[in-house]
């Protein structure tokens, strides 16, 4: 556990990617099985405990610490795990903790009733840094700024393999990854997984740089599609059944039985998950309600039926077609679809255009009239490769909408921003009163964040929990991708991807937007 705690701390604090990589490689080399495999599971978030949850830890701590003092501390620190590790009041003289494997075993086998005592004794035995690691382990949310990609790169480096090769086997293997380490250390062949039955890392797009790209790119080389406002998914219909993966490879099939149970045929499809009747996409908010639940309720399935709008194919039956150009894959997708007409899948249509100017007009009309987020450009010759290759796929987002809104409430951020009031609720005017229209983080420099934080502290009119109400005097310029009608908000509008683009220190609050003006930005559908 000591080594693991040291690794976590180094990963959390070292800004250098190379040093993180080095530390990971060293750790995987020096640590025996199964500890290193379990550590890998912890680092990639693959490990969860049935009974050890943040709430249990908090409860354990509250047996020893005054709840009000705990609340004040949590508000200050901003991270529950770290608050618990720092506030624990009992410290043993010597520090003997079980190994990672023993700890995980203890977490899994101790009865619910005995867990608080176990946690308390572990917290007391741990040295301060181990205590932090222990709490991180127990609560699951590491938040140490480590990407899965970097972890896989370290594994590849350790075994002298290509990171692509690690990605390929990744979704077929599981904790404690014995077969992975055996392969990396050349003690065994690569783990076998049916290629047509598992997740394949996605190909991603780059934003269009209007000033540069449109000059150099030849429109004839590209096909355009609408950018759909859902979530990217991969539908794997393999020999072992159907799985639905999010873009990060999480299996979300349980939340979408309407899709998983109705699709048929053999293929791996890349597409957009949407909800709506008759393939008519509803606003993202409706999809969000489905995404919020691990398993949907019956009425939800009726109210927000899900479907997939397919735009690419990676496997046709068992055949891996990723090395073929997009035009070929598209033809095969259309042919597959003709052979396997579906209730819950349709095709993303190609949007014809002659030159960039015409496409710009189409994009603007799509945004204004249908609320489309923008268009996707795919190089006709592009093969399907994981990651974000340059020059192949582009997203050309609509121009953002802008509204001047008034700051109403501020809340302390979490994680990196925990010491500042950095989550903001802002509103627009309705009959001389402000109505909240959205919430956003601040996206600017530390200096601006500090200024703003100072303003908030000096203009607080009330506070409840971590939230401060402020004088209705400060105007934010808020950019957002689109406005949607919403029954759930008092304002009647929900903003998509709001972000604070500027602080308008100069602008009087009564000149900020009226709610009417914001409502007018909702496209008529």
């Amino acid at each position, binding site marked *: 556990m000591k080594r693991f705690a040291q690794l976590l*701390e180094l990963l*959390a*604090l*070292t*800004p250098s990617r190379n040093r993180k990589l080095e530390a990971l490689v060293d750790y995987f080399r020096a640590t025996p099985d199964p500890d290193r495999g379990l550590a890998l599971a912890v680092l990639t978030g693959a490990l969860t405990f049935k009974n050890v949850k943040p709430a249990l830890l908090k409860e354990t701590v509250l047996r020893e*610490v*005054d709840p*009000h*003092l*705990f609340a*004040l*501390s949590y508000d*200050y*620190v*901003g*991270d529950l795990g*770290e*608050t618990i590790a*720092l*506030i624990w*009041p009992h410290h043993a003289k010597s520090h003997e903790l079980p190994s990672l494997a023993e700890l995980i075993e203890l977490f899994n086998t101790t009865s619910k009733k005995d867990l608080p005592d176990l946690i308390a004794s572990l917290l007391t035995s741990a040295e*301060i840094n181990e205590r*932090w690691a222990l709490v991180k382990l127990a609560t699951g949310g590491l938040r140490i*700024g480590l990407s899965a990609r970097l972890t896989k790169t370290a594994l590849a480096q350790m075994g002298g393999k290509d990171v692509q090769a690690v990605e390929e086997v990744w979704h077929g293997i599981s904790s404690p990854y014995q077969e992975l380490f055996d392969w990396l250390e050349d003690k065994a062949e690569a783990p076998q997984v049916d290629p047509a039955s598992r997740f394949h890392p996605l190909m991603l797009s780059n934003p269009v740089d209007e000033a540069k790209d449109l000059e150099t790119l030849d429109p004839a080389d590209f096909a355009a599609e609408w950018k759909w406002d859902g979530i990217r998914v991969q539908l794997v219909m393999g020999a072992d059944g159907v799985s639905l993966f999010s873009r990060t490879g999480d299996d979300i099939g349980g939340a979408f039985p309407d899709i998983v149970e109705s699709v048929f045929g053999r293929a791996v499809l890349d597409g957009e998950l949407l909800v709506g009747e008759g393939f008519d996409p509803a606003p993202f908010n409706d999809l969000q309600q489905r995404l919020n639940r691990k398993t949907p309720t019956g009425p939800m399935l009726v109210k927000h039926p899900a479907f997939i709008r397919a735009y690419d194919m990676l496997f046709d039956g068992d055949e891996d077609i990723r090395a073929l150009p997009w035009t070929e894959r598209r033809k095969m997708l259309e042919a597959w679809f003709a052979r396997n007409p579906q209730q819950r899948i349709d095709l993303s249509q190609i949007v014809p255009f002659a030159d960039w100017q015409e496409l710009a007009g189409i994009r603007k009309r799509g945004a204004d009239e249908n609320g489309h987020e923008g268009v996707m450009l795919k190089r006709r010759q592009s093969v399907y490769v994981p990651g974000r290759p340059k020059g192949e796929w582009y997203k050309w987002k609509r121009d953002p909408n802008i509204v001047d809104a008034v700051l109403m409430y501020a809340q302390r951020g979490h*994680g*990196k*921003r*925990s*010491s500042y009031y950095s989550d903001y609720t802002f509103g627009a005017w309705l009959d001389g009163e402000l109505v909240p229209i959205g919430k956003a983080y601040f996206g600017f420099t*530390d200096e601006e964040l500090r200024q703003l934080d100072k303003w908030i502290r000096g203009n607080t009119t009330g506070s409840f929990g971590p939230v401060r109400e402020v004088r209705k005097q400060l105007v934010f310029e808020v950019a957002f991708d689109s406005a949607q009608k919403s029954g759930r908000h008092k304002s009647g509008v929900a903003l998509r991807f709001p972000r604070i683009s500027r602080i308008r220190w100069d602008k009087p609050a009564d000149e900020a937007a009226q709610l009417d003006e914001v409502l007018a930005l909702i496209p008529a559908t």
Partner: protein
Amino acid sequence: MPQQILDSQLHIRSIDSYIDPATPRERAIITHGHADHARSGHGSVLATPDTIAIMKARYGEDCAGKFQPLDFGEALAIDDVTITFYPAGHILGSAQVLIEQAGQRVVVTGDYKRLPDRTSQEFELVKCDLLVTEATFGLPVFQHPPAERETARLLASVAGNPERAHLIGAYSLGKAQRVIGLLRDAGHDAPIYLHGAMIRLCELYQERGIALGDLGHATEASKADLAGQVVIAPPSALKDRWSRRLPDPVLAMASGWMSVKQRARQRGVELPLVISDHCDWNELLQTIAETEAETVWVTHGREDALVYYCRQQGLAAEPLNIQGFEDEGGEDAA
């Protein structure tokens, strides 16, 4: 009632003197040399000889109309009030102020700490009726480890990275000298390189009898000379152009705030060193109990939690919101 002796602006009524006033006053009593306590422009200043020396070094010889030195433990009677300074253990010369009048005792701690520190006079407990305590680390999440543990971590990192410099962000007055003292006590006798901003104050400490060993100017050393060495600079220089002269520096920071990893990450600190010149939560509680004060005023930091705690203990407690009191250099100094 001790409240009649002192008001919430730390104004001693009957002799019209202010303790650590934020604006120029005719008569000021200064607890220590940090800028949020010691300001220039007062008519007369009553302080310890070390504090007076520090004020003159930072603000110039004539930064006050006149200076009246008072040694620790010496009682000074002014009318019916008696003032005595006791060491606060915070930085060189830092004092707690005991005010006695009509059988009542009031102690204003200024900034203080109770962990040993050989660059400062050692904290002395003073019993009183009204305690005015600071609360920089007034939350139970602050439990400072022994400073020796932190020094050992630093030296282990220095030994493990012979090709890199270790750049420690430490406040120029007090913290820097304390870190140097800790390194010396741990047996590190290589030269320690300093940012220009702290040279004068280190010299002042040495002149006043605090041994700091062999100190060098970071700007005069070559990049190669600094590999494997310890360099100390104000926290603001950590991310500054200034640090580019160092070979691939490990960024460290010495501050009580560094126990919060999120805070360290925010500052891009790779090696957080929890070395504080203030009490942690447990020391604050210990002090409140040991002074046997029945009334506690809390200032200078996270007042809420400490006031709440005191009231739970049956003490009369109030937060003081004194303008201008914010730790010198913000969180960096603590």
